[in-house]
């Protein structure tokens, strides 16, 4: 049905060309512009512990699309799941399949995703070769975009055709990890035990934290990877024995940091626990139960209760539509990511279905007035926003503690 409609549209536009009303060259003026249908796909882990957050992101994207009217362009949207039930979190093979699906569907002009930096590593190069733009609402691993902040060959290894096609609306971990280390010191931490979930994102931010901790004079009592497990008793005992007073966990909620926090609290209630945006979600506190009280987390931007101006308006609209007064930290980023893409499509006008034009428009976003404030994408595709905040778990909710400045 849709195919037939598309070919009809193609026939009409071909006819328009033959008639030759507009003198070639892709000019916008003159001639009847035909309505176009373009598609945006999102690829986020919709199975497993991240689901609470990703559903909110998808809601936000749908809200952004509903809010935006573009002349002569119909925007369709489909939310793909890059997690599998077997893994319970994102899966590289599934992410690659989603990317291929986007590439092969010619009406797709933008790919919103991923949630996990490790998944982005899989899809960026695939989409790069197809010249398809990708905007992430949540990836924070620095090496995806910034030279010199990750491995030696990063980020060029992700862009085989040499041209950037990836941007993110969240500030990256080279800032967040450092902010976490400084906050740890402010909170009186002296001896830190650093744990990561062995994934790209988790290890990446743990390494940034480690470097900054060393720089500001914190003592490292241990550094190790801990994969997803049913319990972490042995590790908790080891941490207690190390004499650490602060644990920093680099990783995502899917890999059971809540269980680690709980096991740690059982053996050593005085050791403080901090994590990055990967644990800053209601799901973490739900799983940790009482052990979630007093857990610190950092993330880009400010929490919903501190929204002002445009972001407060957004929150009102979100609440009106989805009856949720305090969506998780990434919901608003989902909206912003979708809005940037939609603005790029609108700007493309007649070429709304041209991947290259949309790509150029997204990457060229300058002084964008969005719900997060006024910001731009820099040459690497990173947002110019650098605001972070720290929250602490209290009675099952993240409570804003302080704004954290990048030093």
């Amino acid at each position: 049905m849709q195919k037939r409609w598309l070919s009809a549209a193609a026939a009409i536009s071909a006819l328009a060309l033959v008639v030759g009303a507009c003198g070639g060259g892709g000019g916008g003026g003159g001639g009847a512009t035909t309505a176009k249908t373009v598609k945006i796909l999102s690829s986020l882990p919709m199975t497993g512990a991240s689901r609470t957050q990703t559903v909110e992101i998808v809601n936000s994207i749908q809200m952004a699309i509903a809010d935006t009217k573009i002349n002569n362009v119909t925007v369709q949207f489909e939310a793909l799941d890059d997690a599998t039930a077997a893994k319970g979190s994102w899966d590289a093979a599934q992410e690659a399949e989603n990317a291929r699906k986007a590439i092969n569907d010619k009406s797709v002009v933008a790919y919103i995703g991923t949630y996990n930096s490790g998944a982005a590593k899989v899809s960026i190069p695939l989409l790069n070769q197809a010249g398809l733009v990708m905007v992430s609402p949540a990836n924070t691993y620095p090496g995806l975009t910034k030279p010199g902040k990750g491995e030696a060959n990063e980020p060029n290894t992700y862009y085989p055709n040499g041209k950037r096609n990836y941007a993110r609306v969240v500030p990256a971990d080279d800032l967040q990890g450092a902010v976490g280390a400084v906050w740890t010191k402010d909170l009186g931490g002296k001896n830190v035990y650093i744990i990561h979930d062995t994934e790209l994102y988790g290890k990446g931010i743990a390494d940034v934290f480690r470097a900054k901790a060393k720089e500001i004079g914190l003592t490292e009592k241990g550094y190790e990877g801990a994969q997803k497990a049913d319990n972490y008793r042995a590790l908790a005992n080891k941490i207690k024995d190390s004499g650490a007073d602060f644990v920093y966990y680099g990783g995502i909620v899917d890999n059971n940091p809540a269980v680690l926090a709980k096991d740690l609290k059982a053996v050593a209630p005085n050791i403080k626990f901090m994590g990055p945006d990967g644990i800053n979600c209601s799901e973490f506190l739900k799983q940790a139960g009482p052990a979630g009280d007093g857990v610190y987390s950092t993330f880009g931007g400010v929490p919903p209760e501190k929204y002002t101006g445009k972001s407060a308006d957004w929150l009102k609209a979100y609440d009106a539509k989805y009856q949720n007064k305090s969506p998780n930290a990434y919901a608003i980023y989902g909206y912003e990511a979708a809005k940037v893409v939609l603005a790029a499509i609108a700007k493309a006008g007649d070429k709304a279905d041209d991947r290259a034009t949309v790509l150029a428009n997204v990457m060229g976003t300058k002084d964008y007035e969005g719900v997060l404030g006024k910001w731009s994408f820099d040459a690497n595709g990173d947002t110019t926003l650098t605001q972070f905040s720290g929250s602490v778990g209290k009675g099952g909710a993240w409570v804003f503690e302080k704004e954290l400045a990048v030093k």
Partner: protein
Amino acid sequence: MLGTFACLTTLTLLGFGTEVGVTSTPWWALGLALLAAMIFCGLLNVLAERIAYRPLRRAPRLAPLISAIGVSFIFVNIGLFWQGPTPRRFPDLLPQYDFISQLFGLHTLVRFTFKDLFVLALAIPLMLALAWVIRNTRMGKAMRAVAQDTEMSLQMGIDVNRVISFTFLLGGLLAGAASLMYGLYNNNTVFTLGFDAGLKAFTAAVLGGIGNVSGAALGGFVLGLLSALTVTYFGGQWENVGVFSLLVIILVFKPTGLLGQALGDRA
């Protein structure tokens, strides 16, 4: 996984879905949850056997294996439907007590908490009971006979279907008990739990010697000790490496497992 959900649902119905506000351990509720999970898993197992395995009794060996995979998918999806795709918290209802530091006043890396005691106190009697059933009852004898030679047992007048059903019931009852232990020990559950648990149980059974109950128990202990030691001395990311390296080494030198004897070909 469905067992832990049955426990969780029972506890929630009894008003103990979370430990918040619960001051002392509600043993009667735990007992009811145990009973509910055991009966639920036992009946589920019998049903699965009746639907997915019995019709394939005379089919080639691969057929039941494939239908087993199918059954596991059905179970996973029931779990997904029942408790949703995110991990669920299991209430922490057991007393928080560490025998080594609080009773003996020793401060070491090793801890032995009430939770550990609870697992042992439930698992060891069940283990002994299982061994007794297999060794000493008529049904146990029949089970061993059927395992050894189905055709011959049939000729001897053993109701093979009934014996196999009973074996599945027994397995289900034990799985139900295990799920309460898992839930109270780890305080979390998720619909994909069974996959990892199954892998570990299988590894323990292979390690100890397939077809040998005490071997499986020993295999479980070795597995647990080894993973704790690997985490403590090498670091968390080496846990599976340590465990599976040992498995490979043991199977290379003693293919029948630690306590296994050559029992012939077994499905």
